[in-house]
């Protein structure tokens, strides 16, 4: 693994924790390099990643490193096989999780979220961690959307770079904070965006 790639993991992981998007040992990330996946180690602390915390494992074929890889390796593999993603970020952001518990899709009302997300679908699974069910469900939606929310668990964001997936995750949480605060205010949202009534069909 090149130092540049390790640095991307370290910088992104640190920022995810500082931003409150993961708990101390929560979340996971990976990048695809050809027919290999570099994924965070199961139980690693994203805020303190070292080289030993990044596990090199096959995309198509399993190997012994699966014993070290993140619990979500099965989901990451399925996403890479189904999409052109080169990076995946999975987190547990509290406001986004809260919104996912009461909505079937998250439609931003703020400017940044509107530009970058338009709409975030919420999908549901009974077994929410590292399950074949999620591995079957998520890639289908990630063919259409770069970020999909797993109800009660957290978003999976894809990109060509870790930074892209991190950005989408960060924007989602900010959007959900704004939604939550706005809904708490109880008033009618004063619409300022042309065509926003069509965002639900994005």
């Amino acid at each position, binding site marked *: 693994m090149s130092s540049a790639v390790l640095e991307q993991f370290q910088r992104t992981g640190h920022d995810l924790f500082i931003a409150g998007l993961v708990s101390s040992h929560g979340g996971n990330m990976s990048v695809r390099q050809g*027919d290999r996946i570099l994924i965070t180690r199961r139980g690693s602390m994203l805020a303190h990643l070292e080289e030993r915390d990044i596990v090199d494992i096959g995309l198509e074929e399993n190997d012994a490193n699966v014993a070290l890889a993140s619990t979500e390796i099965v989901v990451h593999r399925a996403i890479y096989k189904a999409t052109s993603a*080169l990076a995946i970020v999975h987190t547990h952001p509290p406001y986004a999780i809260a919104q996912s518990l009461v909505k079937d899709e998250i439609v931003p009302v703020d400017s940044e979220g509107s530009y970058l997300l338009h709409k975030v679908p919420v999908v549901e699974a009974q077994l929410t961690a590292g399950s074949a069910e999620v591995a079957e469900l998520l890639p289908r939606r990630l063919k259409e959307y770069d970020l999909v929310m797993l109800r009660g668990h957290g978003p999976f964001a894809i990109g060509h770079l870790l930074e892209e997936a991190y950005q989408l995750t960060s924007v989602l949480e900010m959007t959900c904070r704004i939604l939550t605060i706005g809904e708490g205010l109880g008033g009618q949202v004063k619409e300022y965006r042309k065509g926003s009534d069509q965002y639900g069909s994005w």
Partner: protein
Amino acid sequence: MSPATSILGPLRGLRVDLSKGTVDADELPREVALAYLGGRGLGSYVALRERLFEVEPFAPENLLVFAPGPLTGTGAPTSGRYSVTSRSPLTGTVFDGNSGGSFGVALRKLGLDYLIVAGACATPSCLAIGLEPAGADGGAAVATPPADGRPAVVVQSAGELWARDVPDTLARLRDLYPGCEAAVIGQAGEREVLFASIVNNHGRSVGRGGLGAVMGSKRLKAVVLAGRGKDRPPVADAERLSFVAYEAEKLLKANPITSQALPEFGTAVLVNVLDQAGALPTRNFRDSRFEHAAATSGEALRRGYVTRRAACRGCGIGCARRTATATASGEGPEYETIWSLGAACGVGDLAAIVEANYVCNRAGMDTITMGSTIACAMELAEEGALPGGPRFGDAAAVLSLCEATARGEGLGEELGQGSARLAARHGRPELSMSVKSLELPAYDPRGMTAQGLAFATSNRGGCHLRANMLGPEILGVPKMIDRFATLGKSGLLINLQNLNAVLDSLSLCKFTAFAMKEDYYARLLSAVWGETVEPQELLRIGERIWNAERLFNLAAGFTRDDDTLPPRLLREPVKAGPAAGRVVDLAPMLDEYYIARGWDEEGRPRAAKLEGLGLAAPVADARPARAATPAGGGSV
């Protein structure tokens, strides 16, 4: 995504055989549209299916495929484009070029998704579609009947148009066919200069690879279309398209590259950007910074020469420029032209660069290859391999050599073969800064290593339009990456190559990708077709097109050895500036790239990859020999 009823049916085309004087209705099943979209993808599909890799580029059997894309003329942002595909006389590869203007829109208004031109005329001719014969000089017109509701086609003597330059030809055609749209060649195409271009009547060129020379070899001066066809290209869900296009325009307006840099300075904004990065190739790539960058920059161009902005049809970016010097006026120059006729030749006289650009435009020549070939001649001369040749910094020589090349006079005759043949003929092939005989554009890969991989693996040779890593390596689009790093960037490059294949096939301008991602393109296409196209499926189509082109080139005799860079970029460290001491470490990047592509170590797509993409290799093992180093003449 789109609730509308699908309008996607078979693709409707025409096949004109100039040798036989026949025109036939042609049709491709809708599955071809689903698999290749249109434009470049359709052209590559036809080139592979018809085994053009077995055809000499100037043989009558070579084809020219003119094809707009499914978004052409629909109102999607920058959707006024079309492609031309053939086998290139310069590179021997499959080769497509595309341009803006309204030619593609006119094709679609005539109800055509593509036009295949085969054969060659006995005498110089024009092709008029949807138009009544117009006797330019009393030349005999051969009319062919309209077929299956398609527009009438007339093959008509070019008469006095032959030997006219591009602006004169276009002006005369506008007199003959008021309101027409036309794609023409100049004297360079007629003379089969290996980098002759095809220019339309909005001054936009299918510039690279010598497709204008292929047109010249067919003695076809112009393709002229009725410009006021009554039928607009069909759209399944106009309301949905309007909404998505509005959202796309919002992004384009919010992005400083597409809303400020390109509109204000044109593509020439990159002169200073690349110079500051130490990636502006200078004096045939001997240096990576240019002492006259500021004097030849977009800012200088705007101050001294720009008379007005211009834009292709359907484009809100508007990167084109009308310019004037004390003695002439015309279109451009673009960034690549300022570089090739300027820094590449060590020329800092912007007025001379602008005027040399006009010479190329009038004759219909690719300015990148023209300037780079002159730069090669300059280095050959300085190395003693071309006695009496031009010297770096000689602006007058650049201007006169452009004119000589257009006329085929003196050294110009040799320059008209491009730098690879020139350098080989004079015993110094390594001084051609080209890949697969196509001259590299204005980015020194020693300062942006993935761009080096992009050049080496480009299916049409040294080209920045297959994938330009300028975004992630210099401008931070989508995000900034380490531009000097060797490994870990092949996946990003592959995605960009696939995406650009999609854009060339839709056909949209690549500048939109500074602001938009594949999901926008998928939603635009879904609205137009009335069928849901997922963003990931769109990229899969791009991958299919890329692999089809690779199969063509493998069948034409290209191998891993051709996926390389000029030796200078691999071995000679940059002397000074931000990239000082750097070379491109290509071999490990290529290994990583092949793995990520699903190709074997020799760069051949593995069976599983082809199966997954629904492709089949056209030949198992019968690969025709190809000259490793191009010699003189037009064959490769």
